[in-house]
């Protein structure tokens, strides 16, 4: 049995209508695919960006704010950690790296972040060129930061890159020279310029963590001479140490948390939104399938005499069933597959836009969830297709032949 001749003819006759049905299915599928793909990409990208931030210590407040400011380098107001706590944490013996983070300046829109040399190296996993800063006036550029190797510049105060001279733009008198460039990390840090924390403290008129006149950078710091910082990243010696340090620094003056904990809370909200949007997408798909079904039923009513003629020519009922079922199956399969491509394309586009805006690389990839969604859409379409197919299967030949 080969229903494709009839299917082809019917689709060709109603090609614009069938194209519209296919597009409707494609758009409905694409919405679902784009939502799940984007949500997964956000999770993976944001988790990857937080990968090197094992334990955060900050002033009591919102963990989410600290994560956004310290990991994703989003401009925001984060209370400063008490200087006494800063001194204590920076001297923590169970930490492989205890890195203070200081923000507040930019160069051409790239945030300037003060920290210790070990963290700059750890974050990048080795530099792509040059070396890590070794003096206060040296800097390491992120992979995508708009400063060149060897370039010397004066940082702008604040995070607004659009202030022009004479309109509130303040340049620090001290200069920085780029001595190294990080490997790409797929995080907002790719757009940053990392400098010694002492430089950040000095240009803002704060103590530099070392004795007066001492020009070295990095630990050990003089606990009595460190100012407050928005956050300290700790890379603990062991997992046990990580949990121990988290408990240790949960004090009235400080909070300690694993960024993953804060991300999980963000993901919960994201998951709720995804679930809501998922249901909306599912409802859209259901409505589209019902609309398509109604349209196909109307077309089939126009064709009932044609099917009756096929029966008169000797076509079995099953042939008629297959003709109708295949028509809808073609729409469902073509629409769902087109929707998969459309949804993946939309997700890639949105990911690209988010990456441009935040620096977080979002790997929008088609995974099992998306295949399941597309498979579900196809299965639903094929199942629903049995309804008009069965109606045509059962339709009286005589009534159809004599119908005007």
């Amino acid at each position, binding site marked *: *049995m*080969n*229903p*494709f*001749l*009839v299917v*082809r*003819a019917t689709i*060709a*006759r109603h090609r614009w209508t069938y194209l519209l049905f296919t597009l409707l299915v494609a758009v409905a599928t694409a919405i679902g695919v784009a939502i799940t793909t984007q949500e997964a990409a956000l999770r993976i990208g944001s988790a990857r960006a937080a990968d090197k931030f094992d334990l955060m210590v900050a002033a009591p407040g919102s963990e989410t704010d600290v994560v956004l400011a310290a990991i994703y380098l989003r401009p925001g107001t984060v209370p400063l950690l008490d200087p006494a706590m800063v001194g204590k944490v920076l001297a923590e013996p169970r930490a492989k790296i205890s890195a203070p983070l200081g923000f507040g300046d930019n160069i051409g829109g790239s945030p300037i972040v003060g920290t210790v040399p070990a963290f700059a190296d750890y974050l990048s996993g080795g530099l792509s060129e040059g070396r890590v800063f070794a003096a206060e006036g040296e800097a390491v550029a992120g992979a995508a930061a708009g400063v060149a190797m060897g370039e010397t510049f004066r940082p702008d105060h604040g995070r607004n890159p659009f202030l022009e001279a004479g309109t509130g733009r303040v340049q620090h008198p001290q200069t920085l020279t780029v001595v190294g460039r990080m490997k790409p990390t797929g995080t907002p840090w790719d757009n940053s310029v990392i400098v010694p924390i002492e430089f950040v403290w000095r240009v803002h008129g704060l103590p530099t963590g070392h004795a007066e006149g001492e020009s070295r950078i990095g630990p050990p710091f003089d606990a009595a001479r460190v100012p407050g910082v928005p956050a300290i990243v700790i890379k603990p010696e062991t997992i046990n140490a990580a949990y121990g340090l988290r408990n240790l620094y949960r004090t009235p003056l400080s909070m300690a948390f694993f960024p993953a904990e804060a991300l999980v809370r963000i993901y919960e909200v994201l998951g709720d939104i995804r679930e809501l949007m998922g249901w909306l997408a599912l409802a859209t798909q259901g409505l589209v399938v019902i609309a398509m079904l109604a349209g196909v039923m109307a077309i089939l009513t126009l064709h009932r*005499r*044609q099917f009756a*003629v*096929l*029966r*008169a*020519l*000797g*076509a*079995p*009922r099953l*042939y008629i069933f297959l003709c109708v079922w295949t028509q809808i199956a073609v729409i469902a399969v073509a629409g769902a597959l087109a929707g998969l491509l459309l949804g993946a394309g939309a997700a890639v586009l949105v990911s690209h836009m988010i990456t441009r805006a935040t620096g977080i690389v979002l790997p929008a990839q088609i995974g099992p969830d998306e295949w399941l969604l597309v498979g579900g859409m196809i299965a639903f379409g094929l199942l629903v297709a049995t309804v008009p197919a069965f109606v045509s299967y059962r339709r009286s*030949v*005589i009534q159809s*032949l*004599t119908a005007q």
Partner: protein
Amino acid sequence: MRPPALSAWCGCGTPNTRRPELNASKPGNLRPPALEIEGLQVGYSNGAGAVTALEIEHMSVPPGTLLAVTGPSGSGKSTFLYAIGGLLRPRRGRVLWDTRDILGETETARDRWRRHTVGFAFQDFHLLPELTPLQNVLLPASFERFTAARAVRERARALLDQLSVPQARASTASLSRGEQQRVAIARALLFDPPVILADEPTASLDAKAGAVVIDILMQLSSRDGRTVIAISHDQELLKQFARIVALDHGRMSDEERRAAS
């Protein structure tokens, strides 16, 4: 397999105006079954009660008969055609093709019987205009197999040639109405059925195209020995038929038998 040469019909020489000449694929082997109708009553319910659409106590149609059925609108002509074509279930009675009570058989058996024993031709042709003439003729083959056998494809081409249908046309929609009816007849003849049932085959054709179709039907009966049963009001067509049955209100009201002209 090339079709036999076509003889000139009107002397103009163009393919569309040649007189189609049909050859059965198995010359002399066609043995149409005899038709016997016994106590047939077909009815339906119209809400106000049961309505009898057709009632024929007895009718006998020998093999190879050229039978026309005529009558006013609503007289039961189409019901008669569909009943003997095994397309409906009667209230009572039998339609015997030879000894086979076709209306008593399973639907699957009737479908298969219709496919190979009966060729239907309709007033409005009911072709798929998006397909080529050849694809339209091959359509009944798709009821059985995914791909038509080579012999069936060759027969389809030969039928189109014999019926002077230009096969080069990509679309059936571009054919004239007369050509389309000839495609429909070729489709009916694909499996070389011994019985042809035609429902107003010339009603939507002009006189010239109608004459060609009448000629084809004559050949199918007189030359190939097929039983041809046609519903028609076309006097030109009726003139050619050896037997004419008139129906009125579902009953046989008149019958004329004569030697075919």
